[in-house]
Every structure is written in structure tokens, then in C-alpha cells.
């Protein structure tokens, strides 16, 4: 679902904007289902929550968690905070950039690119460096471990896409 139509966005909002639910909770529900919050959802969200479109846009863009476009098929979130820095996360980040040919915190434009995102603390500070690949948490990550995990995640993504195409 790369491009969302206005009708799809309205239906998405209607499914999740139950009365009494906060805007933040609605946004979570939308992103959990669609993988991101489509810009087309802003207007129906404003209508459903009795807020201005500016307020809805403000909330979406304030929080790092919300995406306004789909994540890359393989997305890496690497912790760049103090505990992980003390255990070499910056050197690991350099390795990851060199290995994938992608840059951290830049839009993943080209096909097959890996999404690289900096995050600040995954709560694994005694087992640094920590990261997630497609949402799965890993601790004590070394360059070798990263390469193996990336390979496995890429293979799993290809397998899933293949199944979707044949289905």
C-alpha cells in the first residue's frame, strides 16, 4: 500500500477512531494496521477528533515513532545513546553504513535499500550495543552478528513477498 486513496484513508480512520480514544492511541492503531500514517488520513482524523488539521499534523510530526510513508522492507533501528556508545555503537554504525551502502536517518529512496534509523535507548543498556531489525530486538551486536541478522531478515522479507505474489 504505497499510495493511499482518500477513501481508503477515511475507512482506516473510521475503523480506529472510536469515541473516547485519544488521538495518540488512534494514530498507533492506524500505524499498527497500515505500517504508517498516510497523509491522506489527516483530514478525516481532524474531522473524527474535532481537531484542526494543523493540530493533527502537529501531533503526527512531533513524535518520532510515527511514519508518514511506509518503512523499508528491512528496517534497522540502532541505539546511539550513551550506554551503547560506550560499547562501540558508533563504530558499528559505520560498519552498517558501509555494509548496506545506506545512510542513517535518511529517506530510503532506492529499491532494495535498507532503512537505517537512529534510536535512543532500547532498554538493553547492560547488553550494549542493541538494535532491532524489523521490530525484533537484538543485544550485544557485533559487526559479524549484524551481517548474519541482516542476511536472515532480507531472506525472510523476500520469502514473505514471494508468498504474497503467489497468493
Amino acid at each position, binding site marked *: 500500500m504505497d499510495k493511499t486513496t482518500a477513501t481508503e484513508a477515511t475507512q482506516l480512520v473510521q475503523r480506529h477512531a472510536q469515541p473516547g480514544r485519544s*488521538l495518540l492511541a488512534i494514530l*498507533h492503531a492506524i500505524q499498527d494496521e497500515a505500517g504508517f500514517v498516510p497523509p491522506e488520513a489527516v483530514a478525516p482524523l481532524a474531522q473524527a477528533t474535532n481537531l484542526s488539521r494543523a493540530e493533527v499534523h*502537529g*501531533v503526527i510530526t512531533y513524535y518520532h515513532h510515527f511514519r508518514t510513508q511506509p518503512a523499508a522492507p528491512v528496517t534497522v533501528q540502532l541505539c546511539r545513546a550513551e550506554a551503547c*556508545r560506550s*560499547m562501540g555503537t558508533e563504530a558499528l554504525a559505520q560498519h552498517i553504513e558501509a555494509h548496506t551502502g545506506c545512510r542513517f536517518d535518511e529517506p530510503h529512496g532506492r529499491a532494495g535499500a535498507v532503512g537505517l534509523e537512529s534510536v*535512543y535507548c532500547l*532498554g538493553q*543498556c*547492560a547488553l550494549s550495543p542493541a538494535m532491532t531489525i524489523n521490530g525484533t530486538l537484538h543485544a550485544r551486536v557485533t559487526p559479524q552478528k549484524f551481517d548474519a541478522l541482516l542476511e536472515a531478515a532480507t531472506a525472510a522479507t523476500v520469502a514473505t513477498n514471494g508468498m504474497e505474489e503467489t497468493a
Partner: protein
Amino acid sequence: MTRLFVPRDSSALALGADALADAIVEEAARRGVQVELIRNGSRGLLWLEPLVEVETPAGRVGYANVESTDVASLFDAGFIEGKTHARHVGPVDDIPYLKKQQRLTFARIGITDPLSLDDYVAHGGIEGLKQALAMDGTAACDALIESGLRGRGGAAFPAGIKWRTVRAAQADQKYIVCNADEGDSGTFSDRLVMESDPFVLIEGMIIAGIVTGATVGHIYVRSEYPHSIATLEAAIGKARAAGWLGDSVLGSAHRFELFVAKGAGAYVCGEETALLESLEGKRGIVRAKPPLPALSGLFGKPTVINNVITLATVPIIFAKGAGFYKDFGMGRSRGTLPFQLAGNVKHGGLVELAFGVTLRELLYDFGGGTASGRPARAVQVGGPLGTYLPESQWDIPLDYEAYAAVGAVVGHGGLVVHDDTSNLAELAQYAMHFCALESCGKCTPCRIGSTRGVEVIGRIRNGDTSTKQIQLLRDLCDTMVSGSLCAMGGMTPYPVLSALDHFPEDFGLDTAPKAAAA
């Protein structure tokens, strides 16, 4: 049937505990060995994870850092009877790291199945709530004040006084809010409670509700903690089914409902007023105080907002009495603090001890020195807004007032160790960068000062070590400290200035340049 334990907390999962648990069950079935596998919480000895335990007549025997590929050899060696193996670490309760601790808040973690109410009750749970139900609310607030419990999120405000304020407030609705937005690097004690003993937090919040007259509670958990959220939601469901939550708490006349709310990756939402804004569904922008949240908090109603550890410590205080808790600690810092050994440390994990222990004891007697094996050089205490302490300060007792006396903060008890390859100027620049990323934007010194801070430290690191640049950095820090509403802008200068004062060589300076006398 032998009982085996494989932790289900996210640290163990991040090291492959799910695959390991499957491998053990499969291997047992293949060999026709009868086992009952329990997914316990973590003991907090995180460097040993995944730590598999086997129940034997001589107690629970541990096997550390177990991988799926070790499973066959463990069965061959007879680990079902607790026999020796390369991964064998002996009876877990006898491991000095654990044995030397004073576990009060964390009395149950790792021992029980986090989602078993029976386990919770069998290990002393729910006693505090029963005591609180039998007490008058005013007496309960007095007991909490008497215990000396102070806010464990970092601000260290006496919990009982906050509760008394909310209790005395007149309103048609009051709230209990748990701050579980544990965004500080180097801290994971909130996460351990939520994933390894969620019922203790639920019990603490129910007690807060019945004492203050609040009937609704919210736990605001950061989105980076999906395992905590899932565990809490499952635990709340069980507590509701058992009648702990709902219209009649344990059959009493008290009503209490509890909900989990998910954050969305904004560090500043760990600040209590920003958290309340976020919980209302808005941008997490800091509010001016007063009014205090105790009088005008969530949706403008009187609200107790406490950190996870504060609320999770309430049950043992009510179960064992204020005097019991108060007997731990020193000075005005009563009770225990769960210290979190993190970063470049050999034995990282949770160490709950009475206040008064020193960094040196924690770093060497518990932590075993650095993970890299190189000399330790600096320890950042209290999260990203805490100071970097050089070795000359490692013998100061960890106590709120003793730390404040040297301009440091105990905070949430997180310790991040850095070895002698660290560059404190780089870390200082990072502190400003993080503030620029995470500032909510309300106060100019924080929003703009942090970016200017990145720039001025960049110039110093590029060789402009003139007095003018150093003075500029100090003036900027002074403006941020004095001109910010909350700790984000107000305390970012702490790590920066401590790095500059104690590690001037990393900035290219010979000696610590002191600010010009005013």
C-alpha cells in the same frame, strides 16, 4: 517432573531465549524426559542471560549464556539433575552478585512467572494492598511519609506528601498515572519490573488509588518497550479477572480501573507534565508549574504521577511497615535504590542496595570492572542529564544529598561506565545534540541553546580552545540551567560542564579553565 526456567524478559529474548526454550522442549521430548518449562522473569543478572535454571532438591541451579546449540550437550551432561557443564554457574541464589543485594522492590523478580497470580501471592504479593485496605487513608499517607520513600524517577520528591495533596484535593475524578517512559540511557529497572513482576506495579497503583480516592489509573509506557506493554496488558487482564481491579477491589467498597497507554518515541514525555499532555493525546509539550499535577493534572484533575519504581515499592512498605523500609539507607535517602550497571561494564545488571553504597563498590565489587578490560575512566550517573564522575568522585556515598553537594545527581540510579578510550568532549557534544533532537521546543534556551551548544563544542573540538569559546559555552550552559522550564534544557549542561571540568584534556585544554569570577 523437573521444573526448568527460561526467562521471558526482553533482555533474554534479545539473546535468543525463545528459540532456546523451544530447543529445550524439543530435546526433552526427543529424549522422553518429562520437564515443565516455566518462562520466569529475569533475575537482573543480565550479563548471564539467557540464564536457564533447573529446580533441584538443593535449590535452583543456573546455566548462563546458554545458546540453542548447547542444549544437546546440557542434556548429555545431566543438567536436569543440576549436574556440571561448561555453562554451569551453581545455585543462583548463591551467586555473590545476587546474594550481596538487598532486594525489596525486586524481591520476586526472576523467581516467579510474571503472569502467574498464584506465584505472586505465594511470594508475598497482595499483602500490602490488604494492609492498605484496612487503614484509614490519612494514616496510609502518613505511613508513606514515615517510610521516607522519595520519587524514584529522579526528582526525589517525597511520595507520601504528593499522595496527601491529592487525597486532600476535592474533585469528581482523580487519577493515578504511572510514568513508565524510561527513556534514560543506562536505565532499565522500570522495564524489569514491568516484564518480570508486573503485579507489583499494579498492586502499588491500586494502593495509590484507594488511599487518594482516585478510581482510574494509567500506565504510560514508551513505545520502545513492546514487551513491557504486552506483559502489563496480560497482567492487568488477570488482575481484573481475579477481582483486584474493577468495581470492588478485593471485595471492598473501592473501585479502581487501570489502563496502559503507549508513548510514541519522545524523550521529553518522561517529564511529568509533558507526559500528561501526551496521555491526553496531544504533543508532549512541557507545562508550566504551578499548578502542580497533584491539584491539576490529567485533564485538569488531581493526579498522582509517580515513576514505576516508586509505585512498585509501595506494596512492600505497606506489607512490612514504614519502619522496616526506613531502616535501610542513610540521611534523608531512605530505603533502597535499584542501581543499574550499564555500558562498558563486565557484569551489567540490576543491583538493588540501600542508599550509601559507593560507585567504586558498584563498579568493581559488583560490576567486575569494564567489559573491555581497559581502565574505567568516567561514570555517568543518573541518565543523559546526569554528570560524568571522574575516579576522584567514586567514593562519595550514593545518597541524594551527598551527590547534590558535588553538583551531581543520583537520578534513576542508572550508571553508564566509559573506559579510557572514551572522548568526553564528544560525549558532551552528543549531550547537546540529543537535547536538540528531543527538546519539546517550548523554551528558547533549550530549543536553540542546544543547537548552539553542538556548534560551540564543535569549534572547541576543531581546535579553537580560546578562552572566548570556553566562556561562551559556560554562558550558554548558565542560560540553559536558569532559563528552561524542565530538566531537559535545565540539566543538559550537567554532563557538558562535568566533562569540561573533569576531563579538560579531551577538549584540547591543559587544565580545567574556571569560569571568570563574577
